[in-house]
């Protein structure tokens, strides 16, 4: 396994008596695109702010590049690019002046990549930030986070506000950075986005990690939906298993929800009947996500 860029151990944050996040444990490896999935209020932004030392943890530790996110925060931030969930980027400045300002914090890392990003994301940097649309504001936020090619980019809901074409270009940019060995940690509630670009994903619910899996594993471990059309009548009782849920039945029709581990047993039962049509559907991440939330 590649080196861990982010290591989180028992990380907990309380806001007074209410839980922000509780006992988070996971790590993110070098060169991977890691998705942090959960609905609004689940604790995604709290976790990100703890990583950036914008918040102080109640207990537990978070390390980036093997450096403590609280004690060594300044060193950590030298190699970090960050896009806030709702980027507020000095409205009175022009896009260019703002990027110059951010660039000035890392003078040794100035590169032509900023210009490339501006062109690829199609941003007019000469205009004042207060005149920017939500989409342009997001583009500017992405550029400032990635322009110095950080070892780790932490992006909070990065594609929100981007139109589909720009989103595709953005995913390409992330893939290219990954190929260069950069690590991307992105939070999202856009499931198809995570499915498309992430290697692994952590699912967070009510401040607690529900699962940390590769996208592939999540799909494989997860449920299937089977639809069967029989040529004649069938016995519903034949398909009653502990882990199998009968969703819908008709005279010649059966719809089941089953874990992939039960496929063979269901097929064995089906062999007793003459089947007109049979299909297994792999659920999309949305359904998988709901499955985790129903636990």
């Amino acid at each position, binding site marked *: 396994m590649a080196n861990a860029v982010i290591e989180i151990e028992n990380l907990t944050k309380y806001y007074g008596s209410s839980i922000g996040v509780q006992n988070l444990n996971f790590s993110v490896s070098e060169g991977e695109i890691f998705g942090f999935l959960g609905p609004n209020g689940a604790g995604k932004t709290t976790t990100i*702010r703890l990583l*950036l*030392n*914008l*918040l*102080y943890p109640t207990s537990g530790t978070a390390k980036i590049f093997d450096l403590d996110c609280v004690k060594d925060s*300044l*060193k950590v*931030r*030298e190699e*970090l690019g*960050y896009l*806030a969930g*709702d*980027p*507020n*980027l*000095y409205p*009175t400045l022009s896009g260019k002046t703002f990027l110059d*300002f*951010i660039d*000035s*914090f*890392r003078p040794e890392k100035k590169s032509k990549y900023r210009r490339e990003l501006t062109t690829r994301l199609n941003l007019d940097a000469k205009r004042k930030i207060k005149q920017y649309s939500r989409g342009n504001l997001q583009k500017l936020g992405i550029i*400032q986070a990635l322009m110095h090619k950080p070892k780790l980019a932490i992006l909070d809901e990065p594609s929100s506000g981007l139109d589909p074409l720009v989103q595709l270009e953005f995913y390409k940019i992330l893939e290219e950075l990954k190929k260069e060995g950069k690590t991307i940690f992105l939070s999202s509630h856009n499931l198809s986005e995570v499915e498309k670009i992430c290697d692994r994903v952590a699912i967070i619910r009510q401040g607690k990690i529900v699962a940390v899996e590769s996208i592939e594993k999540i799909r494989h471990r997860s449920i299937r939906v089977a639809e069967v059309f029989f040529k004649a009548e069938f016995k519903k009782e034949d398909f009653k298993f502990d882990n199998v849920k009968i969703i819908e039945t008709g005279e010649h029709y059966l719809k089941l929800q089953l874990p992939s581990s039960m496929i063979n047993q269901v097929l064995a039962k089906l062999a007793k009947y003459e089947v007109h049509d049979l299909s297994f559907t792999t659920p999309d991440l949305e359904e998988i996500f709901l499955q985790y939330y129903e636990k």
Partner: protein
Amino acid sequence: MNFNLIKKVLRDYKFSILLFGFGTAAYGASMVAIFPSIQTSANDLMSYMDKMPSAFREAFGMSINSFSTLEGYLSMEYFSMIWIFILVAFTIAFASQAIAGEIDKGTMETLLSQPISRTKIILSKSLVWIFLILLIISGTFIGVFVTAIIANIKVEYLGFLIFGGVALTFFWSFYGLGMFFSSVFYDRSKAIFAPLAIFLAMYLLDILSKLYDQVDKFHFLSLLKYYGNPVEVIQKKVVPWNEVEVLLTVGLVFFFLSIVIFRKKDIY
């Protein structure tokens, strides 16, 4: 210190500094310009003033010098009233923006994701405030001096310089208070209201202390007491070290507290 942040904050204040600098200079200049006509009516104005209770005259800084000397006139009409209101307002506005304002607008999140420490943010911004307040004070004095030279009025330059130093320490004490509340609150309006309310309460206490003996024992609580009567500082040309020490200490204590609080503050 962070030069980039200093440059940015200076850019942010380029228009307001022109407004404050020229505004205070122009107002000071106009006061000097009308002083000769006030001076010719000094005797009439003094006899009118004599009819007022002495405590009232003292409370508003009126003295025999108030109409007969430029220093006395500026002290009563400008440096004890409008001028400190304007400069304290500028100071509180600047301090409230420095931390609470950036948190309120959400820009602090972006700033703190850069490799810059929280202490450096405060120190860099404070350096800008010192530069700007010196610019405004200097602007005021230049306006006064230039108009006085044109109008052929004698000016106590050294006295004005000493008074400028005392005034700087007074504004510093409010800068410390302003930064303290700016580091405590997340909402800029609260960070403005709290030190402004304290200033107004202190201003009232200063006046009441001069009017009523029973209030005078609390006069030490008002920073206006240590600012004193500008005309005395200008004419005596002696630095009131005890007062300066109090003002510097109050400023330093609250400024230090603001650093401690901001370093440990959660940024939402």
